[in-house]
C-alpha cells in the first residue's frame, strides 16, 4: 500500500529560498505532516516545521499545500493521486523564519491591541449567570485554535503588506465580535472595530471561512454581524435617532 510520492518543499532562511524536490515514501493513512516528518527523519534532518498535537487541535502546523492554506496534520495523502507532485510552502502572508516556519508575531501584536473582556464592576466570580442561548454565539468563535490561516489567506494583508497596520485580520475581528456579543462585556467596541481594527477593509469574500479548520462561520456569524452592528452605530440615521429618543443602547 505504500508508494513513492513527489514533493516540492520550499526551503530557505529569511525570504530567500526555493522549492526543493524530494521523492519520499508514503504509506496508507498518512497525512502531509507525516511525510514532512519522514523527510526530517531520513533526508533533511534540519527541515523546519512547526507542529504540536497532530490532531487538528492546536493550530501549529499551518502551511500551504498545493497553494491552499491547510493544517499539515489534517490533510490526508489519500486526497492526492499517486502521480501528483505535492507542493508545500510556508504561509505567504507572514515573514518566513526557515523552511515552513513563519514569524506569526503579527497575530500576537494584534491580539494585544484588542481591549480585553470587560465585565461590569461589582460582579464577583461565582456570581455570573448566563443562559446557554446567550453564550452560544461567542462560544462558536472561541472554538478558534489560532492557526492564523484566516489571517494568512485574507487578501487584505496577503496581497497588501501595507494594510497590516490598519487591519486586525479575520481572527481578531472575530475576537471583537466574540466580546461584543458576550452577555457580560460592557466595553464599547463597535466604533473601534471600524476605525482602529479595520473592519471596513473586509470585503466579505469569505476566504477566511473557506480555510477555517474548525469550520467556524467567520464571515456570516462574526464579521457580517459586526458590520451590521457598526452600521447601527455609524451609518444608520434611524437607529441613531431611535437610540436618542428611547435612550437605549445596543448592548
Amino acid at each position, binding site marked *: 500500500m505504500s508508494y513513492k510520492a513527489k514533493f516540492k518543499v520550499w526551503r530557505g*532562511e529569511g525570504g530567500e529560498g526555493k522549492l526543493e524536490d524530494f521523492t519520499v515514501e508514503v*504509506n*496508507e*493513512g*498518512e*497525512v502531509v*505532516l*507525516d511525510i514532512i516528518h519522514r523527510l*526530517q*527523519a531520513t533526508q533533511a*534532518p*534540519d*527541515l*523546519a*516545521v*512547526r*507542529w*504540536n*498535537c*497532530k*490532531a*487538528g*487541535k*492546536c*493550530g*501549529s502546523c499551518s502551511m500551504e499545500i498545493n497553494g491552499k492554506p491547510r493544517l499539515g*496534520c*489534517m490533510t*490526508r495523502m*489519500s486526497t492526492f493521486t499517486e502521480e501528483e507532485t505535492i507542493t508545500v510552502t510556508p504561509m505567504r502572508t507572514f515573514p518566513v*523564519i*526557515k*523552511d515552513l*516556519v513563519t*514569524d*506569526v508575531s503579527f497575530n*500576537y501584536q494584534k*491580539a*494585544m491591541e484588542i*481591549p*480585553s*473582556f470587560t*465585565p461590569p464592576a461589582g*460582579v*464577583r*466570580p*461565582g456570581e*455570573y*449567570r*448566563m*443562559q446557554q442561548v446567550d*453564550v452560544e454565539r*461567542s*462560544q462558536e468563535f*472561541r*472554538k*478558534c*485554535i*489560532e492557526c492564523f490561516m484566516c489571517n494568512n489567506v485574507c487578501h487584505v494583508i496577503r496581497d497588501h503588506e501595507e494594510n497590516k497596520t490598519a487591519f486586525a485580520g479575520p481572527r481578531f475581528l472575530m475576537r471583537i465580535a466574540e*466580546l461584543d456579543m458576550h452577555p457580560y462585556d460592557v466595553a464599547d467596541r463597535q466604533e473601534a472595530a471600524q476605525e482602529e481594527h479595520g473592519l471596513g477593509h473586509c470585503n466579505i469574500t469569505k476566504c477566511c471561512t473557506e480555510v477555517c479548520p474548525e469550520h467556524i462561520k467567520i464571515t456570516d456569524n462574526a464579521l457580517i454581524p459586526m458590520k451590521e452592528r457598526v452600521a447601527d452605530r455609524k451609518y444608520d440615521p434611524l437607529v441613531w435617532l431611535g437610540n436618542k429618543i428611547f435612550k437605549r443602547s445596543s448592548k
Partner: protein
Amino acid sequence: MENSPNTERHEYDVVVIGAGGAGLRAAIEARQQGKRTAIVCKSLFGKAHTVMAEGGAAAAMGNVNSDDNWMVHFRDTMRGGKFLNNWRMAELHAKEAPDRVWELEAWGALFDRTKDGKISQRNFGGHEYPRLAHVGDRTGLELIRTLQQRVVALQQEDQETHGDPEAFIKVFAECTVTRLLKDGDAISGAFGYWRETGNFILFDAPAVVLATGGIGKSYVVTSNSWEYTGDGHALALLAGAKLINMEFIQFHPTGMVWPPSVRGILVTESVRGDGGVLRNSKGERFMFDYIPDVFKDKYATTEEEGDRWYTDQANNRRPPELLPRDEVARAINAEVKAGRGSPQGGVFLDVSSRLPAEEIKRRLPSMHHQFKELADVDITTEPMQVGPTCHYIMGGVEVDADTGAAAVPGLFAAGEVSGGMHGSNRLGGNSLSDLLVFGRRAGGGAAAYVDGLAARPAVSPELVEEARAEAIAPLGRGGENPYEVHHELQRTMNELVGIIRKAEEVAEAMEVVEKLKERVRLVGAAGSRIYNPGWHLAIDLRNMVLVSECVAKAALKREESRGGHTRDDFPGMNPAWRRKLLVCSTGDGASVTVEEQEQPPMRDDLIVLFERDELSKYLTDEEMTEFDGISK
C-alpha cells in the same frame, strides 16, 4: 554558523517554564503579586498540550447536584489514586477548585450553562456527582485561551500604567530551557535557547516555576504532543530536586491505532458509555472474560444483561466495557498479545451496529468528525480500531503542597510535572483543576519566596559556559541521527515498561536505556542553528533518557500493582507499599538512584471522612488500629 554569539540576558523575579494551564496560572499569580515574571514556552503562546483536554475541570461547585462538596471530591480523588495521593494536595485541590473555575469566568471564559444560568457540570468516571465544568469537548482550549487572554489583559494594564506592556510579564515563545542555574543551594536562573535563531538566552532569576507537563514522548503510542519530553522532570533532577511516583503512568484504554499519523489520539470514554462495545478479531466481546473478582458482582456477566443496562440501569449491571481504565487497557493489551487483535494492532470498538447513524452523530459529534477527517472511517457504518495509549504521568517533582516548592530553594513546580496530587491514578477532570489550583499556589509560593530573600543569588559565569557548551555540542558533531535514538527509546519504553511490567523486561529496558545514554552523548545534528528540529531533538533526548531511567527503576522497585503501575509478577495491591513512595534523585546528573520514603499518615479530620470498610481494603492492620483509635 557562528559559534559564540552573545547570550542575551534578562532579569526577572520569577521565571515560569511552560505555558500550559499550570504555567500561565502561576505566571498570572506571580504578576498579580507584583513580581516581574517571564513565561518561557517551547511552542507558540497558546499552543500548549492543555488544549487537548476534552472532558472538563472537576470542581465541587454543586451546580447540578447540590449534595456535592469538597469532602466528596476529596474522597473521590483519594479513592481514584488508591490512597497513595499526597492527601494535603488532594484536600487543597478539592477545596479550591471551585474558586479557580469561577475566576476563569470573570476573565472571560464561557462554559456551558445549566438552566438557571450557572456553570453546567457533567458526570465522569470516578466522580460521585456531576462535577466537570466544561465547554462541549474542548474545555482545555477554553482554559488555555482564557489564561492567555488574561496574560494579555495584564499586559494591557501595564501598558496603561507603565507605558510598556512587557514591564511586568513577558512571554518568551519558542524558547527552550536546557539548564537551571544555582548559586550554592539556591536557584539563580535558567539557561536556554531560542528555537527561531538558535541563540542562547539567560534568565537571571531567584525563583523558577516548572510547569512543563509530562513525559509521553518517551513512548511510541501516546496521546501527548512532541513537547512532552520530560524537560521539567529532568531539569528538576539535574538541579538536585527529587521526583516521586515515577512508576505511575496512566494508559488510556482507547486511543486510535490507525492511521499511523494519529496513533495514540484519544477516543473518548463516552463512546463506550453510549453503547460502544469492544470486540476482538473473532468478533467476541472479550471484556466478559476479564472481569476481576472484586468487580464480579457489579458488572454484567452476559451480553443480554449488559445490553439491557443502557436502557434500564436500575435493574441491570453495567457491561464490562465500562470497567475502570486500567482494567480495560490491560484486557485490550492481553487480546492483542494473544493474536486476536485487529489488523492494525488494536481491537475493534464498534458503535455502528449498536446505534442508528443519526443517533451516533448526535451523541458523538466530535468522534464522528475526528474519525471522518483523520482516518476516513465512518463510525456510523464501521468499527473503530483502538488500543491503549500513554496518556499522563502521575509522578513528578516532589513539592510542598501549599506552596509548590521543591527541595531546592527557589524551585517550584505545578501541574503534570509535579507529583503526589493524583497518587497512583488520576481521575478524569482532575488535571485541569489541578493546573489551576496548584499553578496559582506555585506562583504565589514563588512570589513569597522572592519577598523573603535577603540577597539575590548570583549567576555564575562558569555554569553558564557549561550549559552553553552542553547545548551547542550536538550541532555539527558528525554523530548518529537523533531520530533513530529517539525511536529506539520509544520502542523500548513502550514494549518493556508499558502497561504490564515484568521484572525481567524492566531490567532489560534499563540495560537498553543505559546504552542509549551513551548514544545520546554522541548524536549529531546537521544544519544551522536556525530552527533546526534535529538539534532540538538531540537536546531533548538527554531529558527523555534520564526520565525513562526513573520510570524503569521505580517500576522495578515497586513490587505490587496499583493504579498506573501493573506488575505481572506482583498482581495484587499491597497495603505495606501504600505507605511508601519511591523517590528518584541524581548525584552526578548521569545516573538515577531510587529510594523508598515513607508517606506521612493522613490528618485525623481527613481520614474520618472515609468508611472503615473502605479503608480496610487499602490500609495495613497497624494503620487500621490507629484509625479505630481516632474514629472513636
